């Protein structure tokens, strides 16, 4: 593995770290989804950088496209759930979701 790949993996670690920080500490539901999105960006970058280093870019691109499509479906569904929750609780705070009673 060359130095370029190691540099890319360092940035992937930074992206996944930022996303994990967002997921673990934030309380706004939209912010949590932004964290998921940043982690997905890191995964896509890891796939493409590995394909580039191993000279297997075509398979890496098809896997990256699969990740992107699944990500879009997840985000769309989660945003619809957030809009529904916001109608009930009038807030975006995850701490308000501790009550199961509607």
């Amino acid at each position, binding site marked *: 593995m060359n130095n*370029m790949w190691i*540099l890319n993996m360092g*940035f992937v670690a930074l*992206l996944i*770290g*930022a*996303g*994990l*920080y*967002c997921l*673990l*500490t*934030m*309380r*706004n539901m*939209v*912010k949590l*989804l*932004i*964290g998921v*999105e*940043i982690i997905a*960006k890191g995964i*896509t*970058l890891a796939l*493409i*950088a590995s394909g*580039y280093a*191993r*000279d*297997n*870019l*075509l*398979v*890496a*691109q*098809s*896997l*990256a*496209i*699969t990740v*992107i*499509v*699944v*990500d*879009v*479906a*997840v*985000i*769309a*569904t989660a*945003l*619809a759930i957030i*809009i*529904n929750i*916001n*109608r*009930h609780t009038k*807030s*975006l705070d995850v701490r308000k979701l501790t009550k199961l009673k509607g």
Partner: protein
Amino acid sequence: MHFFLMIGLVAFSILAVLSRDLLRSAISLAVASIFLAVIFFRMNAVYAGVFEVSVVAGLITVLFITTIALTRGDQEVIENKRHLLIFPLFFLILIIIDILVMKNLLGKIPAMVSSETGTFGEVLWNQRTFDLVGQIGVIFAGVLAVLALFRQGGKNHDGGKNE
């Protein structure tokens, strides 16, 4: 050049996490996507770059901004900033342990049998056919889920009015 693009990508991602305004976060995320797409184009991954620009920077940003507009008003959520110092320390320790463990394992990854030939379409359709079927399934499941969620929400809303 590559290094600066990577710095831009990470900087806008961190800005998206730390920004207080949700709209500013969503736009920072779109800018980070554009940086990532330029990185893909420079790595000759044209198809992934096109998907990144059109789907992630375009469609997902539109979805985020629509949601923020629909839920605006009661969006003041007090965030706790106390973790900002503790989390990077633990993450750094995790990365150091990871590097120490992975250094020995990296040499054991087998090389691919042969360098691939053909076009992107051939690889996608012939080798990754099952992935495509899965993608279609996921998209349909997402569409049905969104439809079901909004239909159910409408019913509950009406029920609430009647009560």
